[in-house]
Protein backbone atom coordinates (compact mmCIF):
# COMPACT_ATOMS: atom_id res chain seq x y z
CA UNK A 1 0.00 0.00 0.00
CA UNK A 2 2.83 2.34 0.92
CA UNK A 3 4.41 1.61 -2.44
CA UNK A 4 1.19 2.54 -4.19
CA UNK A 5 0.94 5.74 -2.19
CA UNK A 6 4.49 6.61 -3.14
CA UNK A 7 3.72 5.89 -6.79
CA UNK A 8 0.69 8.13 -6.51
CA UNK A 9 2.76 10.91 -5.03
CA UNK A 10 5.33 10.47 -7.76
CA UNK A 11 2.54 10.71 -10.31
CA UNK A 12 1.32 13.89 -8.68
CA UNK A 13 4.80 15.28 -8.80
CA UNK A 14 5.27 14.36 -12.45
CA UNK A 15 1.84 15.77 -13.35
CA UNK A 16 2.69 19.02 -11.64
CA UNK A 17 6.09 19.26 -13.26
CA UNK A 18 5.31 18.23 -16.83
CA UNK A 19 1.71 19.39 -16.99
CA UNK A 20 2.50 21.64 -19.96
CA UNK A 21 3.46 18.61 -22.05
CA UNK A 22 1.19 15.97 -20.51
CA UNK A 23 -2.09 17.71 -21.29
CA UNK A 24 -1.47 18.08 -25.04
CA UNK A 25 -0.12 14.51 -25.17
CA UNK A 26 -3.25 13.26 -23.39
CA UNK A 27 -5.49 15.21 -25.76
CA UNK A 28 -3.55 13.93 -28.75
CA UNK A 29 -3.86 10.30 -27.64
CA UNK A 30 -7.56 10.66 -26.83
CA UNK A 31 -8.25 12.27 -30.20
CA UNK A 32 -6.16 9.74 -32.13
CA UNK A 33 -7.85 6.76 -30.46
CA UNK A 34 -11.28 8.28 -31.10
CA UNK A 35 -10.62 8.99 -34.77
CA UNK A 36 -9.07 5.59 -35.35
CA UNK A 37 -12.03 3.86 -33.68
CA UNK A 38 -14.46 5.88 -35.83
CA UNK A 39 -12.48 5.12 -39.00
CA UNK A 40 -12.21 1.45 -38.06
CA UNK A 41 -15.91 0.99 -37.42
CA UNK A 42 -17.75 3.27 -39.81
CA UNK A 43 -15.02 4.34 -42.21
CA UNK A 44 -17.23 4.41 -45.29
CA UNK A 45 -15.51 7.39 -46.87
CA UNK A 46 -12.18 5.89 -47.78
CA UNK A 47 -10.54 9.20 -48.60
CA UNK A 48 -11.03 10.39 -45.04
CA UNK A 49 -10.52 7.06 -43.27
CA UNK A 50 -6.76 7.21 -43.57
CA UNK A 51 -4.23 7.22 -40.78
CA UNK A 52 -2.40 10.45 -41.83
CA UNK A 53 -5.68 12.38 -41.73
CA UNK A 54 -6.50 11.02 -38.29
CA UNK A 55 -2.97 11.89 -37.15
CA UNK A 56 -3.17 15.46 -38.45
CA UNK A 57 -6.59 15.95 -36.87
CA UNK A 58 -5.33 14.54 -33.57
CA UNK A 59 -2.32 16.88 -33.65
CA UNK A 60 -4.65 19.78 -34.26
CA UNK A 61 -6.85 18.72 -31.35
CA UNK A 62 -3.89 18.48 -28.97
CA UNK A 63 -3.43 22.27 -29.05
CA UNK A 64 -7.09 23.24 -29.10
CA UNK A 65 -9.69 22.99 -26.34
CA UNK A 66 -11.01 19.55 -25.42
CA UNK A 67 -14.38 20.16 -27.01
CA UNK A 68 -12.70 20.44 -30.38
CA UNK A 69 -12.16 16.65 -30.24
CA UNK A 70 -15.91 16.23 -29.90
CA UNK A 71 -16.65 18.56 -32.81
CA UNK A 72 -14.09 16.78 -34.99
CA UNK A 73 -15.43 13.35 -34.01
CA UNK A 74 -19.00 14.40 -34.75
CA UNK A 75 -18.03 15.81 -38.15
CA UNK A 76 -15.91 12.77 -38.99
CA UNK A 77 -18.71 10.35 -38.13
CA UNK A 78 -21.18 12.48 -40.12
CA UNK A 79 -18.90 12.45 -43.16
CA UNK A 80 -18.56 8.66 -43.01
CA UNK A 81 -22.28 8.15 -42.51
CA UNK A 82 -22.99 10.54 -45.38
CA UNK A 83 -20.82 8.39 -47.63
CA UNK A 84 -23.08 5.47 -46.76
CA UNK A 85 -26.38 7.28 -47.06
CA UNK A 86 -27.58 10.85 -46.97
CA UNK A 87 -30.61 9.87 -44.88
CA UNK A 88 -28.38 8.37 -42.21
CA UNK A 89 -26.31 11.53 -42.09
CA UNK A 90 -29.44 13.62 -41.72
CA UNK A 91 -30.74 11.55 -38.82
CA UNK A 92 -27.38 11.39 -37.06
CA UNK A 93 -26.94 15.14 -37.61
CA UNK A 94 -30.36 15.86 -36.11
CA UNK A 95 -29.58 13.71 -33.08
CA UNK A 96 -26.24 15.46 -32.57
CA UNK A 97 -27.97 18.82 -32.85
CA UNK A 98 -30.65 17.80 -30.35
CA UNK A 99 -27.97 16.73 -27.88
CA UNK A 100 -26.19 20.03 -28.26
CA UNK A 101 -29.29 22.19 -28.10
CA UNK A 102 -30.89 20.46 -25.15
CA UNK A 103 -28.03 19.42 -22.92
CA UNK A 104 -24.46 20.26 -23.83
CA UNK A 105 -25.30 23.93 -23.94
CA UNK A 106 -25.54 23.68 -20.14
CA UNK A 107 -22.57 21.51 -19.38
CA UNK A 108 -19.91 21.63 -22.06
CA UNK A 109 -17.50 19.81 -19.72
CA UNK A 110 -19.56 16.63 -19.91
CA UNK A 111 -19.33 16.34 -23.67
CA UNK A 112 -16.28 14.12 -23.52
CA UNK A 113 -18.41 11.38 -21.96
CA UNK A 114 -20.27 11.08 -25.27
CA UNK A 115 -17.02 9.97 -26.88
CA UNK A 116 -15.75 7.98 -23.92
CA UNK A 117 -18.89 5.84 -23.61
CA UNK A 118 -18.80 4.38 -27.14
CA UNK A 119 -15.05 3.79 -26.85
CA UNK A 120 -15.53 1.95 -23.53
CA UNK A 121 -18.39 -0.02 -25.10
CA UNK A 122 -16.03 -1.16 -27.84
CA UNK A 123 -13.39 -2.07 -25.25
CA UNK A 124 -16.03 -4.18 -23.44
CA UNK A 125 -15.90 -2.06 -20.30
CA UNK A 126 -18.95 0.17 -20.73
CA UNK A 127 -19.95 -0.43 -17.12
CA UNK A 128 -16.94 1.57 -15.94
CA UNK A 129 -18.51 4.76 -17.28
CA UNK A 130 -21.66 4.96 -15.12
CA UNK A 131 -19.67 3.89 -12.05
CA UNK A 132 -17.01 6.54 -12.66
CA UNK A 133 -19.53 9.26 -13.35
CA UNK A 134 -21.49 8.34 -10.25
CA UNK A 135 -18.29 8.78 -8.26
CA UNK A 136 -17.13 12.07 -9.71
CA UNK A 137 -20.21 13.54 -11.29
CA UNK A 138 -23.71 14.53 -10.37
CA UNK A 139 -27.09 12.95 -11.16
CA UNK A 140 -27.10 15.19 -14.25
CA UNK A 141 -24.37 12.94 -15.64
CA UNK A 142 -27.17 10.49 -16.43
CA UNK A 143 -27.90 12.62 -19.50
CA UNK A 144 -24.28 12.53 -20.67
CA UNK A 145 -24.06 8.76 -20.28
CA UNK A 146 -27.39 8.34 -22.04
CA UNK A 147 -26.20 10.46 -24.95
CA UNK A 148 -23.07 8.30 -25.19
CA UNK A 149 -25.11 5.10 -25.18
CA UNK A 150 -27.45 6.51 -27.85
CA UNK A 151 -24.54 7.51 -30.09
CA UNK A 152 -22.93 4.07 -29.69
CA UNK A 153 -26.10 2.22 -30.57
CA UNK A 154 -27.04 4.47 -33.49
CA UNK A 155 -23.62 4.13 -35.09
CA UNK A 156 -23.65 0.41 -34.31
CA UNK A 157 -27.06 0.04 -35.93
CA UNK A 158 -25.95 1.94 -39.02
CA UNK A 159 -22.88 -0.28 -39.27
CA UNK A 160 -24.98 -3.43 -38.94
CA UNK A 161 -27.57 -2.34 -41.45
CA UNK A 162 -25.23 -0.92 -44.06
CA UNK A 163 -26.10 -3.67 -46.56
CA UNK A 164 -29.83 -3.38 -45.88
CA UNK A 165 -29.66 0.35 -46.47
CA UNK A 166 -27.95 -0.16 -49.80
CA UNK A 167 -30.69 -2.58 -50.76
CA UNK A 168 -33.33 0.02 -49.86
CA UNK A 169 -32.01 2.49 -52.45
CA UNK A 170 -34.70 1.47 -54.88
CA UNK A 171 -37.53 2.03 -52.37
CA UNK A 172 -36.80 5.70 -51.98
CA UNK A 173 -35.73 8.12 -49.30
CA UNK A 174 -38.78 7.75 -47.07
CA UNK A 175 -38.38 4.01 -46.77
CA UNK A 176 -34.84 4.52 -45.58
CA UNK A 177 -35.92 7.07 -43.02
CA UNK A 178 -38.58 4.76 -41.72
CA UNK A 179 -36.21 1.83 -41.59
CA UNK A 180 -33.59 3.83 -39.69
CA UNK A 181 -35.95 5.45 -37.19
CA UNK A 182 -37.71 2.14 -36.56
CA UNK A 183 -34.39 0.50 -35.91
CA UNK A 184 -33.19 3.21 -33.55
CA UNK A 185 -36.41 3.65 -31.58
CA UNK A 186 -37.11 -0.07 -31.39
CA UNK A 187 -33.65 -0.95 -30.14
CA UNK A 188 -34.50 -2.65 -26.83
CA UNK A 189 -30.86 -3.27 -25.96
CA UNK A 190 -30.28 0.46 -26.04
CA UNK A 191 -33.32 1.07 -23.87
CA UNK A 192 -32.25 -1.50 -21.27
CA UNK A 193 -28.71 -0.11 -21.23
CA UNK A 194 -30.02 3.44 -20.80
CA UNK A 195 -32.10 2.42 -17.79
CA UNK A 196 -29.30 0.33 -16.28
CA UNK A 197 -26.72 3.08 -16.65
CA UNK A 198 -29.04 5.77 -15.34
CA UNK A 199 -29.86 3.73 -12.23
CA UNK A 200 -26.18 2.90 -11.72
CA UNK A 201 -25.11 6.55 -11.88
CA UNK A 202 -27.78 7.62 -9.41
CA UNK A 203 -27.15 4.71 -7.01
CA UNK A 204 -23.39 5.20 -7.01
CA UNK A 205 -23.84 8.93 -6.50
CA UNK A 206 -26.23 8.48 -3.56
CA UNK A 207 -24.13 5.83 -1.80
CA UNK A 208 -20.79 7.56 -2.22
CA UNK A 209 -22.23 10.66 -0.57
CA UNK A 210 -23.40 8.67 2.46
CA UNK A 211 -21.61 9.09 5.75
CA UNK A 212 -20.40 5.49 5.98
CA UNK A 213 -17.02 3.76 5.93
CA UNK A 214 -15.79 2.60 2.52
CA UNK A 215 -18.65 4.53 0.91
CA UNK A 216 -16.87 4.64 -2.45
CA UNK A 217 -16.16 0.91 -2.57
CA UNK A 218 -19.68 0.04 -1.45
CA UNK A 219 -21.04 2.44 -4.06
CA UNK A 220 -19.03 0.78 -6.82
CA UNK A 221 -20.09 -2.72 -5.76
CA UNK A 222 -23.76 -1.84 -5.35
CA UNK A 223 -23.76 0.10 -8.61
CA UNK A 224 -22.14 -2.79 -10.46
CA UNK A 225 -24.60 -5.31 -9.03
CA UNK A 226 -27.57 -3.10 -9.85
CA UNK A 227 -26.23 -2.73 -13.36
CA UNK A 228 -25.95 -6.51 -13.83
CA UNK A 229 -29.37 -7.06 -12.32
CA UNK A 230 -31.14 -4.54 -14.55
CA UNK A 231 -29.41 -5.84 -17.65
CA UNK A 232 -30.45 -9.39 -16.75
CA UNK A 233 -34.06 -8.36 -16.07
CA UNK A 234 -34.04 -6.39 -19.32
CA UNK A 235 -32.73 -9.43 -21.13
CA UNK A 236 -35.51 -11.56 -19.69
CA UNK A 237 -38.19 -9.00 -20.54
CA UNK A 238 -37.17 -7.97 -24.03
CA UNK A 239 -34.81 -10.77 -25.12
CA UNK A 240 -32.08 -8.29 -25.83
CA UNK A 241 -29.46 -11.03 -26.27
CA UNK A 242 -27.01 -9.26 -23.98
CA UNK A 243 -24.35 -11.88 -23.16
CA UNK A 244 -24.77 -12.56 -19.43
CA UNK A 245 -21.24 -13.86 -18.94
CA UNK A 246 -19.91 -10.84 -20.79
CA UNK A 247 -21.91 -8.53 -18.53
CA UNK A 248 -20.55 -10.19 -15.38
CA UNK A 249 -16.95 -10.27 -16.61
CA UNK A 250 -17.25 -6.74 -17.95
CA UNK A 251 -18.61 -5.56 -14.60
CA UNK A 252 -15.72 -7.22 -12.73
CA UNK A 253 -13.25 -5.63 -15.13
CA UNK A 254 -15.02 -2.30 -14.76
CA UNK A 255 -14.84 -2.66 -10.97
CA UNK A 256 -11.06 -3.11 -11.23
CA UNK A 257 -10.71 -0.17 -13.59
CA UNK A 258 -12.81 2.09 -11.36
CA UNK A 259 -10.86 1.03 -8.24
CA UNK A 260 -7.60 1.93 -9.96
CA UNK A 261 -9.10 5.22 -11.13
CA UNK A 262 -10.39 5.87 -7.62
CA UNK A 263 -6.93 5.41 -6.17
CA UNK A 264 -4.96 7.30 -8.76
CA UNK A 265 -7.40 9.88 -10.08
CA UNK A 266 -10.60 10.49 -8.14
CA UNK A 267 -9.26 10.75 -4.61
CA UNK A 268 -6.23 12.73 -5.55
CA UNK A 269 -6.12 16.39 -6.12
CA UNK A 270 -3.55 16.67 -8.85
CA UNK A 271 -3.34 20.31 -7.90
CA UNK A 272 -1.73 21.66 -10.93
CA UNK A 273 1.12 24.03 -10.98
CA UNK A 274 -0.17 27.53 -11.43
CA UNK A 275 1.64 29.88 -13.74
CA UNK A 276 0.29 33.37 -13.34
CA UNK A 277 1.35 36.84 -14.33
CA UNK A 278 0.44 40.08 -12.68
CA UNK A 279 1.93 43.42 -11.88
CA UNK A 280 1.90 46.18 -9.34
CA UNK A 281 3.28 49.71 -9.46
CA UNK A 282 6.88 48.54 -9.24
CA UNK A 283 7.18 45.01 -10.60
CA UNK A 284 5.98 42.49 -13.09
CA UNK A 285 5.45 39.14 -11.43
CA UNK A 286 5.77 35.82 -13.24
CA UNK A 287 4.79 33.38 -10.52
CA UNK A 288 4.92 29.62 -10.67
CA UNK A 289 2.98 28.24 -7.71
CA UNK A 290 3.88 24.57 -7.14
CA UNK A 291 1.60 22.45 -4.94
CA UNK A 292 3.14 20.91 -1.83
CA UNK A 293 3.78 17.18 -1.81
CA UNK A 294 2.92 15.21 1.33
CA UNK A 295 4.95 12.03 0.78
CA UNK A 296 8.29 12.73 -0.80
CA UNK A 297 10.05 10.14 -2.92
CA UNK A 298 13.33 10.00 -0.94
CA UNK A 299 11.33 8.70 2.01
CA UNK A 300 11.03 5.34 0.32
CA UNK A 301 14.25 4.15 2.02
CA UNK A 302 12.94 5.17 5.39
CA UNK A 303 9.69 3.41 4.64
CA UNK A 304 11.51 0.13 4.00
CA UNK A 305 13.17 0.22 7.40
CA UNK A 306 10.05 1.29 9.22
CA UNK A 307 8.09 -1.27 7.24
CA UNK A 308 10.26 -4.00 8.73
CA UNK A 309 9.88 -2.68 12.24
CA UNK A 310 6.21 -2.17 11.63
CA UNK A 311 6.02 -5.83 10.72
CA UNK A 312 7.81 -6.65 13.97
CA UNK A 313 5.47 -4.44 15.89
CA UNK A 314 2.55 -6.15 14.28
CA UNK A 315 3.91 -9.59 15.19
CA UNK A 316 4.58 -8.36 18.72
CA UNK A 317 1.10 -7.04 19.07
CA UNK A 318 -0.50 -10.25 17.89
CA UNK A 319 1.78 -12.36 20.07
CA UNK A 320 1.06 -10.16 23.10
CA UNK A 321 -2.64 -10.57 22.64
CA UNK A 322 -2.30 -14.34 22.24
CA UNK A 323 -0.14 -14.65 25.36
CA UNK A 324 -2.37 -12.55 27.56
CA UNK A 325 -5.38 -14.51 26.39
CA UNK A 326 -3.65 -17.81 27.14
CA UNK A 327 -2.56 -16.63 30.56
CA UNK A 328 -6.01 -15.41 31.44
CA UNK A 329 -7.63 -18.63 30.33
CA UNK A 330 -5.12 -20.78 32.17
CA UNK A 331 -5.34 -18.75 35.30
CA UNK A 332 -9.09 -18.80 35.36
CA UNK A 333 -9.14 -22.49 34.55
CA UNK A 334 -6.64 -23.32 37.24
CA UNK A 335 -8.45 -21.21 39.80
CA UNK A 336 -11.70 -22.95 39.11
CA UNK A 337 -10.14 -26.34 39.27
CA UNK A 338 -8.30 -25.48 42.47
CA UNK A 339 -11.48 -24.40 44.09
CA UNK A 340 -13.16 -27.53 42.97
CA UNK A 341 -10.29 -29.63 44.33
CA UNK A 342 -9.90 -27.88 47.66
CA UNK A 343 -13.40 -27.22 48.71
CA UNK A 344 -14.86 -23.83 49.39
CA UNK A 345 -13.10 -20.59 48.78
CA UNK A 346 -11.72 -18.62 45.95
CA UNK A 347 -8.30 -19.00 44.61
CA UNK A 348 -6.48 -17.07 41.99
CA UNK A 349 -3.29 -18.45 40.71
CA UNK A 350 -1.43 -15.40 39.84
CA UNK A 351 1.88 -13.80 40.30
CA UNK A 352 2.97 -10.27 40.56
CA UNK A 353 4.46 -9.04 37.40
CA UNK A 354 3.63 -7.98 33.97
CA UNK A 355 1.86 -10.74 32.27
CA UNK A 356 -0.31 -9.28 29.63
CA UNK A 357 -3.38 -7.80 31.15
CA UNK A 358 -3.70 -10.26 33.96
CA UNK A 359 -4.13 -8.67 37.36
CA UNK A 360 -1.64 -9.69 40.02
CA UNK A 361 -3.65 -10.70 43.02
CA UNK A 362 -2.88 -12.57 46.14
CA UNK A 363 -4.65 -15.85 46.44
CA UNK A 364 -7.67 -15.66 48.57
CA UNK A 365 -8.95 -18.75 50.15
CA UNK A 366 -10.47 -19.90 53.35
CA UNK A 367 -10.81 -23.48 52.48
CA UNK A 368 -8.05 -25.77 51.45
CA UNK A 369 -4.58 -24.66 50.77
CA UNK A 370 -3.94 -23.59 47.27
CA UNK A 371 -0.46 -23.76 46.09
CA UNK A 372 0.52 -20.83 44.02
CA UNK A 373 3.78 -19.65 42.77
CA UNK A 374 4.05 -15.96 42.45
CA UNK A 375 7.27 -15.44 40.73
CA UNK A 376 7.97 -11.78 40.30
CA UNK A 377 9.57 -11.18 37.07
CA UNK A 378 13.15 -11.89 36.40
CA UNK A 379 13.08 -15.49 35.48
CA UNK A 380 16.36 -15.82 33.67
CA UNK A 381 18.51 -13.42 31.78
CA UNK A 382 19.07 -15.53 28.74
CA UNK A 383 18.57 -19.13 28.04
CA UNK A 384 16.79 -21.69 26.08
CA UNK A 385 13.79 -21.70 28.22
CA UNK A 386 14.50 -24.29 30.85
CA UNK A 387 11.82 -23.79 33.38
CA UNK A 388 12.48 -23.63 37.07
CA UNK A 389 9.80 -26.14 37.69
CA UNK A 390 10.07 -29.63 36.54
CA UNK A 391 8.08 -30.66 33.57
CA UNK A 392 7.88 -30.32 29.84
CA UNK A 393 9.04 -27.00 28.62
CA UNK A 394 8.21 -25.47 25.30
CA UNK A 395 9.82 -22.27 24.29
CA UNK A 396 8.88 -20.04 21.48
CA UNK A 397 11.66 -17.53 21.83
CA UNK A 398 14.94 -16.89 23.50
CA UNK A 399 16.02 -13.84 25.42
CA UNK A 400 15.87 -11.88 28.61
CA UNK A 401 12.82 -12.70 30.57
CA UNK A 402 10.65 -10.95 33.02
CA UNK A 403 7.17 -11.98 33.72
CA UNK A 404 4.81 -14.06 35.75
CA UNK A 405 4.68 -17.70 36.57
CA UNK A 406 1.28 -19.17 37.16
CA UNK A 407 0.92 -22.72 38.03
CA UNK A 408 -0.77 -25.04 40.39
CA UNK A 409 0.18 -28.45 41.41
CA UNK A 410 -1.03 -31.03 38.93
CA UNK A 411 -2.01 -28.29 36.57
CA UNK A 412 -0.54 -26.95 33.44
CA UNK A 413 0.75 -23.42 33.69
CA UNK A 414 2.04 -20.82 31.42
CA UNK A 415 4.72 -18.30 31.75
CA UNK A 416 4.48 -15.18 29.78
CA UNK A 417 7.64 -13.27 29.55
CA UNK A 418 8.70 -10.15 27.89
CA UNK A 419 12.05 -8.84 26.90
CA UNK A 420 11.65 -5.12 27.01
CA UNK A 421 15.01 -4.38 25.54
CA UNK A 422 14.43 -6.21 22.33
CA UNK A 423 10.70 -6.22 22.22
CA UNK A 424 10.57 -9.99 21.72
CA UNK A 425 8.06 -11.99 23.66
CA UNK A 426 8.13 -15.61 24.52
CA UNK A 427 5.80 -18.12 26.03
CA UNK A 428 6.76 -21.06 28.14
CA UNK A 429 4.32 -23.87 28.59
CA UNK A 430 5.20 -25.97 31.61
CA UNK A 431 3.54 -29.21 32.30
CA UNK A 432 3.77 -29.96 35.98
CA UNK A 433 3.58 -33.54 36.97
Amino acid at each position, binding site marked *: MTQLLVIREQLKKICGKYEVYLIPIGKFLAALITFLVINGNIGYMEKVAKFPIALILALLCSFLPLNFIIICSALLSLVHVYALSMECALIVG*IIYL*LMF*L*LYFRFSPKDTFVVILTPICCMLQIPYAIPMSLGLVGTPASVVSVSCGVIVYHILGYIKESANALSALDADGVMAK*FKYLIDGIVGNKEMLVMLIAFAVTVILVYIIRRMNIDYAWTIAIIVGGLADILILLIGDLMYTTNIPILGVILGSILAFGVVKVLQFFVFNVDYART*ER*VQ*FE*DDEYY*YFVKAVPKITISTPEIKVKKVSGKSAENADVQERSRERVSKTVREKAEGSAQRTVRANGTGTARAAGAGTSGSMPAKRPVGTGGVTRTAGSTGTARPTGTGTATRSGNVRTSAIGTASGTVNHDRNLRSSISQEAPTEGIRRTYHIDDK
Partner: protein
Amino acid sequence: MISEQRVKLMTRLAAYEQREGKKNEEIGSYFRGDYISFHILKSALSATMAFALIVALFVLYDSELFLSDIYKIDILDYVKKLVLYYVAFTGIYVLISYVIYAIRYRKAKKRLKVYFNNLKRLQILYQRERKDKLQ
Protein backbone atom coordinates in the same frame (compact mmCIF):
# COMPACT_ATOMS: atom_id res chain seq x y z
CA MET B 1 11.02 45.41 -1.45
CA ILE B 2 8.68 42.57 -2.40
CA SER B 3 6.05 41.73 0.20
CA GLU B 4 5.70 37.96 0.47
CA GLN B 5 2.20 38.15 1.88
CA ARG B 6 1.06 40.41 -0.91
CA VAL B 7 2.59 38.22 -3.62
CA LYS B 8 0.80 35.19 -2.17
CA LEU B 9 -2.50 37.00 -2.19
CA MET B 10 -1.96 38.35 -5.67
CA THR B 11 -1.05 34.87 -6.93
CA ARG B 12 -4.22 33.45 -5.48
CA LEU B 13 -6.27 36.21 -7.06
CA ALA B 14 -4.55 35.82 -10.42
CA ALA B 15 -5.09 32.05 -10.36
CA TYR B 16 -8.78 32.58 -9.64
CA GLU B 17 -9.04 35.11 -12.46
CA GLN B 18 -7.34 32.71 -14.84
CA ARG B 19 -9.63 29.80 -13.99
CA GLU B 20 -13.16 30.98 -13.43
CA GLY B 21 -12.82 34.64 -12.65
CA LYS B 22 -13.75 35.90 -16.10
CA LYS B 23 -16.87 33.79 -16.27
CA ASN B 24 -17.98 34.77 -12.78
CA GLU B 25 -17.27 38.42 -13.47
CA GLU B 26 -19.45 38.25 -16.55
CA ILE B 27 -22.26 36.70 -14.52
CA GLY B 28 -21.76 39.26 -11.77
CA SER B 29 -22.13 42.12 -14.23
CA TYR B 30 -25.84 41.25 -14.60
CA PHE B 31 -28.67 41.75 -12.17
CA ARG B 32 -30.14 38.42 -11.16
CA GLY B 33 -33.38 38.95 -13.06
CA ASP B 34 -31.59 40.13 -16.20
CA TYR B 35 -29.15 37.23 -16.16
CA ILE B 36 -31.81 34.58 -15.69
CA SER B 37 -34.28 36.04 -18.16
CA PHE B 38 -31.57 36.43 -20.82
CA HIS B 39 -30.63 32.78 -20.47
CA ILE B 40 -34.23 31.67 -20.35
CA LEU B 41 -34.74 33.43 -23.65
CA LYS B 42 -31.80 31.54 -25.10
CA SER B 43 -33.16 28.29 -23.68
CA ALA B 44 -36.59 28.95 -25.17
CA LEU B 45 -34.94 29.50 -28.54
CA SER B 46 -33.00 26.25 -28.21
CA ALA B 47 -36.13 24.40 -27.14
CA THR B 48 -38.01 25.79 -30.16
CA MET B 49 -35.29 24.63 -32.51
CA ALA B 50 -35.14 21.22 -30.85
CA PHE B 51 -38.92 20.88 -31.04
CA ALA B 52 -38.85 21.81 -34.73
CA LEU B 53 -36.22 19.13 -35.34
CA ILE B 54 -38.24 16.50 -33.48
CA VAL B 55 -41.37 17.42 -35.44
CA ALA B 56 -39.35 17.25 -38.66
CA LEU B 57 -38.22 13.75 -37.71
CA PHE B 58 -41.82 12.70 -37.05
CA VAL B 59 -42.98 14.16 -40.33
CA LEU B 60 -40.19 12.37 -42.19
CA TYR B 61 -41.08 9.13 -40.46
CA ASP B 62 -44.76 9.34 -41.23
CA SER B 63 -44.48 11.41 -44.38
CA GLU B 64 -46.38 8.98 -46.60
CA LEU B 65 -49.30 8.76 -44.22
CA PHE B 66 -49.16 12.49 -43.59
CA LEU B 67 -49.26 13.36 -47.28
CA SER B 68 -52.07 10.94 -48.03
CA ASP B 69 -54.22 12.13 -45.12
CA ILE B 70 -53.48 15.83 -45.36
CA TYR B 71 -56.91 16.63 -46.77
CA LYS B 72 -58.74 14.44 -44.30
CA ILE B 73 -57.23 15.62 -41.02
CA ASP B 74 -58.58 18.54 -39.03
CA ILE B 75 -55.77 21.04 -39.44
CA LEU B 76 -56.93 23.26 -36.58
CA ASP B 77 -57.04 20.36 -34.16
CA TYR B 78 -53.65 19.20 -35.41
CA VAL B 79 -52.11 22.64 -34.90
CA LYS B 80 -53.70 22.92 -31.45
CA LYS B 81 -52.15 19.64 -30.42
CA LEU B 82 -48.81 20.71 -31.83
CA VAL B 83 -48.92 24.02 -29.95
CA LEU B 84 -49.87 22.21 -26.75
CA TYR B 85 -46.91 19.86 -27.09
CA TYR B 86 -44.65 22.77 -27.91
CA VAL B 87 -45.76 24.74 -24.85
CA ALA B 88 -45.34 21.71 -22.59
CA PHE B 89 -41.90 20.87 -24.00
CA THR B 90 -40.61 24.43 -23.89
CA GLY B 91 -42.18 25.07 -20.49
CA ILE B 92 -40.44 22.12 -18.87
CA TYR B 93 -37.15 22.99 -20.54
CA VAL B 94 -37.37 26.63 -19.49
CA LEU B 95 -38.21 25.62 -15.92
CA ILE B 96 -35.12 23.42 -15.75
CA SER B 97 -33.07 26.25 -17.26
CA TYR B 98 -34.40 28.66 -14.65
CA VAL B 99 -33.29 26.41 -11.81
CA ILE B 100 -29.84 25.83 -13.34
CA TYR B 101 -29.14 29.49 -14.05
CA ALA B 102 -30.46 30.63 -10.69
CA ILE B 103 -28.02 28.22 -8.97
CA ARG B 104 -25.20 29.36 -11.23
CA TYR B 105 -25.85 33.00 -10.47
CA ARG B 106 -25.90 32.38 -6.72
CA LYS B 107 -22.64 30.42 -6.83
CA ALA B 108 -20.92 33.01 -9.00
CA LYS B 109 -21.99 35.80 -6.66
CA LYS B 110 -20.66 33.90 -3.67
CA ARG B 111 -17.27 33.41 -5.32
CA LEU B 112 -17.16 36.99 -6.44
CA LYS B 113 -17.78 38.07 -2.86
CA VAL B 114 -14.73 36.10 -1.71
CA TYR B 115 -12.74 37.57 -4.58
CA PHE B 116 -13.71 41.14 -3.70
CA ASN B 117 -12.87 40.51 -0.04
CA ASN B 118 -9.42 39.38 -1.12
CA LEU B 119 -9.09 42.49 -3.24
CA LYS B 120 -9.92 44.59 -0.20
CA ARG B 121 -7.26 42.76 1.79
CA LEU B 122 -4.80 43.49 -0.98
CA GLN B 123 -5.71 47.13 -0.88
CA ILE B 124 -5.10 47.23 2.87
CA LEU B 125 -1.69 45.63 2.36
CA TYR B 126 -0.82 48.29 -0.21
CA GLN B 127 -1.88 51.08 2.14
CA ARG B 128 0.23 49.60 4.92
CA GLU B 129 3.26 49.37 2.66
CA ARG B 130 2.82 53.00 1.60
CA LYS B 131 2.63 54.09 5.19
CA ASP B 132 5.80 52.17 6.00
CA LYS B 133 7.55 53.79 3.08
CA LEU B 134 6.54 57.26 4.20
CA GLN B 135 7.80 56.64 7.72
